[in-house]
C-alpha cells in the first residue's frame, strides 16, 4: 500500500524491453483457463454458496414439519430413533442416526440391509424427532441436491463427475494464481472502481470481487481439492497402507464411521442408548452430538459410537466415544488424530464451514457469493473486451456468439433453474411417483429452457428478459409458499420462525439483486471506440427505437 503509481513507472518502462513479460503470459493463461471451465465453475460456486444454508433450504422444502422452536434433547431422540429402528431396520448389522440440531428439525438414519455388501447395501429415512416415526412430509431431496451438484453434478457417473469437478477446481487454482500475478496494481487499485466506463468498470468489479475475497477464494478452491484428495491422488495411500488392517487404521484417522466386524451370534440386548449419549453430552455439550452409530444391535458384540458435533472446532477429524453395546461400558474416547490427519480435518472443515455460528455462516455465504460474481464478471469481461473489437458487431464470429450465449444461460439461467426447483417443490403433486427426482428434473428442464431462450433471442434482450424472469421467479416464491402452505412470510415472522422467514427474505434480496442487474443491463450503452465516437459525433444518429439494442445500431452507423 506504500507504493505510489508514479514512483515506479518510468524506471520500469526503461528496464523492460522484452515484448511479452510474465504478466502478459499470465494474463493469457488467466483468461483462457478461466474461460474454459468458467461456466462449470460458476455453477459450482453458486450451488456451493447456497449449500452453506443447505439445512435451512431442506427445512423450507419440507413445510409439513413444524418449526423447531427448541432443539429436542439428543439423548432422548437417539433412544427414540434406535427404538424405531428395531422394527424399521430389523436384522441390520449397522444403524447410524443423525440427530437434529439448531438448523435441522429432523433426525435421519441410514442402515445396512442385512446380507447385502457394497454401495447398494444402505437404506435411509428421515424421522420425526418428537415421535420417532418416519416423517410424513413430501418426497424431496431438499437442499442436499445443490450440495451434491456442486461437486458431482447429475446425470453422470459420480466418479467421472468428481474428476470433472476436480479438473475445474485445479483450473480455478491456476486462474487465481495467474490472476494475482496479472493484476498489476493490486494495492494501488485496491479501492478503485470507475463507474460507467465499460470494460474498465467490468475489470474493476472483477478485481474488487477477487481481491477482497482472495483469502476465501484461494482457501475454498484448495480445500475443495483436499476434500477429494484420496480420489485424485490415491497413490501415496496405496503405497503406504497395504493390508486391510492398515487401511482400517487410516480410515479411523479420517472418519468416525466404523465397519461392522463379525457378529458373535450370541443375542444380548443393548444397554440404554440415552445413558451413553448423556456421557457424550457431559463431554461436548448438550446439543453438540452429531451421530450415534450402532453395529450389530442385539448381538453380544454390539458397539455404540457417538460422534461429536461440528460446533466450536474448525476440524472434521473424528472425535467419538465408543461403548460396549450390551453393558454400556466406555471402551474408547478418541479426541485427537495425528498431525497429517488433523491437517486434512481442518481443511475439510474450513471448506464446509459447518462449525460457524450464524454470523460466520453469513460471512461464508456473502464472500462465496462474491466469488460467484468474480467468476461471472470474468466470463462477461471476456465478451465485453472483444465486443468493441468486432469487425462487424451484427455478425460476431462463432466463438464469440458461443461464449456470449453460454454466459447468458450459465449466469442468468442458473438463478431461474435453482428457483425453478423450489417452485417444483411446491407445485408438483404430492403423490407423484419419484417426486424428489422430478424436482431435480425440473431444475434441468428449466435450465435447458433458458439456454434455448439465450440461443434464440438477441443476446442483449435475452440477458434482460432472463434477469427479469429470475427476479420474478425468486420474488414470487414467498407468495407461492403463502398460497400453498400455511407458513407464509408474515406467519413465519409472527411465529419467530427465522428459518422460513430468513430464507424468504434472502430470496427477496436476491430478487432485488436481479432487478438491479436487469435495469443496469437495459440502461447500458456500449462505449464506442474513440475514432468511432468522433465519427458518430459528426453525424448524430436518431435515437434508436426502444426495443432495439441501444448500442448496436449506433456502432453500425459509426462503422459505415
Amino acid at each position, binding site marked *: 500500500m506504500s507504493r505510489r503509481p508514479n514512483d515506479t513507472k518510468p524506471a520500469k518502462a526503461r528496464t523492460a524491453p522484452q515484448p511479452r513479460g510474465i504478466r502478459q503470459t499470465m494474463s493469457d493463461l488467466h483468461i483462457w483457463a478461466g474461460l474454459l471451465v468458467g461456466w462449470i465453475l460458476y455453477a459450482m460456486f453458486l450451488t456451493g454458496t447456497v449449500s452453506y444454508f443447505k439445512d435451512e433450504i431442506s427445512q423450507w422444502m419440507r413445510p409439513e414439519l413444524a418449526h423447531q422452536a427448541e432443539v429436542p434433547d439428543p439423548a432422548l431422540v437417539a433412544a427414540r430413533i434406535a427404538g424405531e429402528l428395531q422394527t424399521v431396520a430389523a436384522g441390520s448389522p449397522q444403524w447410524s442416526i443423525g440427530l437434529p440440531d439448531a438448523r435441522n428439525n429432523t433426525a435421519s438414519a441410514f442402515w445396512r440391509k442385512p446380507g447385502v455388501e457394497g454401495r447398494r447395501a444402505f437404506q435411509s429415512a428421515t424421522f420425526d424427532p418428537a415421535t420417532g416415526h418416519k416423517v410424513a412430509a413430501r418426497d424431496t431431496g431438499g437442499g442436499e441436491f445443490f450440495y451434491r451438484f456442486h461437486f458431482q453434478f447429475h446425470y453422470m457417473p459420480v466418479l467421472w463427475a468428481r474428476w470433472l469437478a476436480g479438473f475445474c477446481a485445479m483450473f480455478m487454482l491456476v486462474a487465481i494464481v495467474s490472476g494475482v500475478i496479472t493484476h498489476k496494481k493490486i494495492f494501488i487499485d485496491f479501492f478503485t472502481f470507475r463507474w460507467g466506463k465499460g470494460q474498465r468498470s467490468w475489470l474493476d468489479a472483477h478485481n474488487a470481487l477477487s481481491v477482497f475475497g482472495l483469502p476465501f477464494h484461494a482457501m475454498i478452491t484448495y480445500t475443495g481439492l483436499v476434500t477429494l484428495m484420496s480420489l485424485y491422488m490415491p497413490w501415496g495411500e496405496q503405497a503406504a497402507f497395504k493390508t486391510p488392517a492398515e487401511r482400517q487404521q487410516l480410515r479411523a484417522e479420517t472418519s468416525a464411521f466404523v465397519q461392522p466386524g463379525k457378529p458373535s451370534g450370541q443375542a444380548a440386548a443393548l444397554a440404554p442408548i440415552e445413558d451413553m449419549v448423556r456421557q457424550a453430552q457431559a463431554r461436548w455439550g448438550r446439543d453438540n452430538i452429531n451421530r450415534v452409530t450402532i453395529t450389530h444391535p442385539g448381538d453380544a458384540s454390539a458397539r455404540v459410537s457417538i460422534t461429536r458435533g461440528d460446533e466450536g*472446532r*474448525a476440524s472434521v477429524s473424528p472425535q467419538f466415544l465408543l461403548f460396549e453395546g450390551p453393558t454400556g461400558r466406555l471402551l474408547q474416547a478418541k479426541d485427537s488424530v495425528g498431525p497429517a490427519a488433523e491437517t486434512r480435518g481442518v481443511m475439510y472443515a474450513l471448506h464446509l464451514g459447518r462449525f460457524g455460528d450464524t454470523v*460466520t455462516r453469513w460471512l461464508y455465504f456473502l464472500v462465496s457469493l462474491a466469488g460467484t460474481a468474480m467468476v461471472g464478471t470474468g466470463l462477461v469481461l471476456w465478451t465485453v473486451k472483444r465486443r468493441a473489437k468486432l469487425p462487424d458487431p451484427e455478425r460476431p464470429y462463432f466463438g464469440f456468439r458461443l461464449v456470449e450465449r453460454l454466459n447468458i444461460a450459465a449466469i442468468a439461467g442458473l438463478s431461474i433453474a435453482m428457483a425453478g426447483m423450489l417452485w417444483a417443490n411446491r407445485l408438483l403433486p404430492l403423490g407423484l411417483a419419484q417426486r424428489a427426482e422430478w424436482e431435480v428434473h425440473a431444475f434441468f428442464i428449466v435450465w435447458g429452457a433458458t439456454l434455448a431462450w439465450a440461443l434464440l433471442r438477441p443476446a442483449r434482450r435475452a440477458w434482460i428478459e432472463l434477469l427479469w424472469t429470475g427476479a420474478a421467479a425468486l420474488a414470487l416464491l414467498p407468495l407461492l409458499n403463502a398460497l400453498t402452505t400455511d407458513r407464509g412470510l408474515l406467519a413465519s415472522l409472527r411465529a419467530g420462525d427465522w428459518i422460513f422467514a430468513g430464507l424468504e427474505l434472502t430470496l427477496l434480496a436476491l430478487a432485488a439483486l436481479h432487478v438491479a442487474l436487469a435495469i443496469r443491463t437495459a440502461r447500458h450503452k456500449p462505449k464506442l471506440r474513440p475514432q468511432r465516437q468522433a465519427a458518430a459525433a459528426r453525424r448524430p444518429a436518431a435515437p434508436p427505437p426502444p426495443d432495439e439494442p441501444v448500442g448496436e445500431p449506433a456502432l453500425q452507423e459509426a462503422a459505415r
Partner: protein
Amino acid sequence: MSHAAVSVVSLLAFALLALAMDRHQQDLFGRELEPRRSRALRIGGWAALLASLTIAVDAQGWSLGLVAWCGHISLSAGVVILALVAWERRKAR
C-alpha cells in the same frame, strides 16, 4: 457481540487505508493530503486492522476467530469500495 466489534473496527481500518491513498484523497477532498497525514492514516489503518484481528482471536480463539476475521475483512473492504462508489456517484449528479 464480538462480531459487531470486529466488523466496525475492520470497517474503520479499510476506511483509513482508503483515505491514505492519493487517488481517494483527490476524490473525497479534491486535493492530496500532505505525506505526513497520509502516513498517519496508513499507520492508523493497519493498526485498526490488527486490532480487529486481536478482537476476533480474543473472543473466539485462533481457529474460529481467524476464519471469522477473514470473512469480516473481505466484507468490510467491499463496504468501503461501495461507499466510495456511492460518494462518487452522488458528487457526479
